[in-house]
């Protein structure tokens, strides 16, 4: 026991002061996550600020955001393995790990969010399938697609630990890792197929089918959100790798990889901007008036219109910075572009849940305010902190960035 404590102490002291502070904060958040997570699981959702008038809250925003931003994994894999954009090779391990964690913590947040996590398997045993193979409930589709894609990400992740210098020396594991990597295009294709569906269903279709709720209803909502996940997700993958490089003070990914993926992200964000504009237009001119309400009224309240405006401003700025070469090649504009791309998509998820849930159903009711409790913040931030810690661990001990390892080996 003493040896373990000494090892941990030495390990902790081997880091710089800033990293040590970050580790303390992250571990504290994980501690709160465990404490309040137990409270929520055993004593119920009464400790949240959600209510019968505001049934979806912060964790659903987290789910939507993580799945959309994790969508960068399937997009990068699709361009690398199917379109053979080889320049993306140095970042693929990082994107697969982030994608895997995004989906893992989506499932973790869902466990906290549903009232009966012990019955979560009902989604597999009593699925709401409609006629033929079409799921009746968008959530049924989400449950199945999310699970299958999570399995695919897990398989995609296997070669990463197998490339560790210790495991790689074992011939059997070396060949398994090698051939799995060669056949990964099959997983990338299956992952893309599944991702298209659940990005559409969780991000948009789930809301677009709610015909009695004019703030959400839009039959084409399913399709609008797929480019959002592809654009915002790739920006997020770039942002994570960029921050990792800054923290490690090394070139973890070659600049061409950054720029190639940034261009893909920029183009996807243009499609997102156009489709999002069509979505707002159709809602404002067809579906909201069909419910005898006005768009400006329904997007009033505490959240509403200003969030939609910010969403558009962020997306437009990201498009400019990522698509124009003169901006993309300047580091600060590149950083602003990828940050705003990810934030624009995250903001669109806030608009859907935070604002959508606040809209009153009766004319004599006001908009509803939502103030997450310490339990909700702890589970949410603790989950994100766990993801950061796993990423930090993987960056240190696994060949997360092959480019970096190649350079280090060359130097030696």
């Amino acid at each position: 026991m003493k040896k373990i404590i000494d090892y941990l102490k030495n390990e902790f002291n081997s880091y710089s002061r800033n990293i040590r502070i970050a580790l303390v904060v992250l571990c504290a958040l994980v501690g709160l996550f465990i404490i309040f997570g137990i409270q929520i699981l055993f004593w119920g959702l009464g400790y949240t600020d959600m209510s019968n008038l505001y049934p979806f809250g912060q964790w659903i925003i987290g789910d939507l955001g993580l799945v959309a931003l994790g969508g960068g994994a399937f997009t990068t894999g699709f361009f690398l393995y199917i379109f053979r954009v080889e320049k993306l090779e140095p970042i693929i391990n990082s994107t697969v790990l982030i994608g895997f964690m995004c989906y893992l913590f989506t499932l973790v947040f869902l466990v906290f969010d549903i009232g009966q996590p012990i019955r979560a398997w009902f989604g597999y045993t009593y699925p709401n399938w409609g006629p033929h193979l079409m799921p009746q409930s968008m959530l049924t589709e989400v449950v199945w697609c999310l699970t299958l894609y999570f399995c695919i990400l897990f398989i995609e992740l296997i070669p990463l630990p197998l490339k560790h210098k210790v495991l790689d020396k074992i011939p059997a594991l070396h060949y398994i890792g090698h051939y799995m990597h060669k056949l990964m295009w099959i997983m990338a294709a299956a992952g893309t197929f599944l991702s298209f569906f659940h990005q559409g269903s969780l991000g948009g279709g789930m809301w677009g089918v709610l015909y009695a709720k004019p703030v959400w209803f839009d039959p084409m909502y399913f399709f609008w959100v797929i480019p959002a996940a592809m654009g915002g997700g790739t920006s997020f993958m770039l942002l994570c790798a960029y921050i990792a490089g800054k923290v490690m003070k090394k070139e973890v990914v070659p600049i061409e990889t950054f720029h190639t993926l940034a261009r893909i992200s920029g183009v996807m964000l243009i499609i997102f901007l156009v489709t999002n504009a069509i979505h707002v237009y159709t809602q404002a001119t067809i579906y909201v008036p069909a419910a005898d309400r006005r768009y400006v009224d329904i997007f009033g309240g505490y959240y509403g219109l200003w969030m939609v405006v910010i969403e558009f401003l962020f997306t437009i700025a990201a498009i400019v910075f990522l698509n124009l070469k003169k901006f993309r090649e300047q580091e600060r504009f590149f950083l602003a572009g990828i940050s705003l791309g990810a934030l624009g998509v995250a903001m669109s998820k806030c608009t859907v849940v935070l604002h959508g849930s606040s809209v009153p159903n009766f004319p004599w009711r006001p908009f509803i305010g939502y103030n997450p409790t310490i339990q909700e913040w702890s589970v949410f931030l603790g989950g994100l902190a766990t993801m950061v810690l796993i990423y930090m661990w993987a960056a240190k001990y696994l060949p997360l960035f092959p480019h970096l390892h190649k350079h280090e080996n060359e130097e030696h």
Partner: protein
Amino acid sequence: MEHNESANITRKAPAMRRRWGMAIDLDKCTGCGNCAIACAQENNMPIFKDDSDLPKRVTFLDLMKVTNDRDAQYPNVHVAYIPKMCQQCEGNDPSDPKPPCVSVCPVVATDVGDDGVVSQVWSRCIGCRYCQSSCPYEARAFNWWKPRNEGRFQESLNPDVSIASRGTVVKCTFCSHIWKRERDKAVANGELDINAVLYTPACVASCPTGAMVFGDLNDPNSEVSRLSRDRRAFRLVHTIDEKPADEQKRLRGIKNYPNPKVYYLTSQQWIRDMQRFR
């Protein structure tokens, strides 16, 4: 022998004709709250020492107090009470009912019967609250805490209604367990026609002024059917009803509408005006 008899009964059983609906006369409603209490008693609503957290309270029938103008002074201020429960929506096509909450459930915990009543199986529900989000009438309640019936309330629990566990969504089912009880009685007396049995939900039975009427909307001679066609009748925030027939047809081509089976009646124009968002 018994098996053959039961097979014959199944074959001979007539098709369901009933389409249950309700009419509530707001001009007669005094806001006494008897309906809400009867509902809570009949359906084993949890009762906590402190039930002041209204948005988290579990109740099937919410007595909404509305006023024409919060700042109005006497004698210009008007107040009305609107008893609001699940409105048993059916979507655009009553022959193929599609309530907004049914198709969204990922585990088929909620369904709509051939009598038009939207059911909910407490023990199947996983508590995702998607149905709550889809409901335009805020008619569904979630058990945020472990349901309790503190003190001597436990002794008055209704054995016909199961008690929901924490983390599940519950809702009004027009007291369909009472109908089942009445049907069982009728079957014991030799009556096998499912359409022969009528019943009264607890809220309607408890109303002291007769403001609530329950019955079969498919029967043109029933009182509820007659009241639903009354010129004083309207449906809660369902303003499409006020539009001309061709405009209604155009709008129904764009989207589904809830089309609830609960009708409200009033002769006070301000209550009808309040149903509009603009």
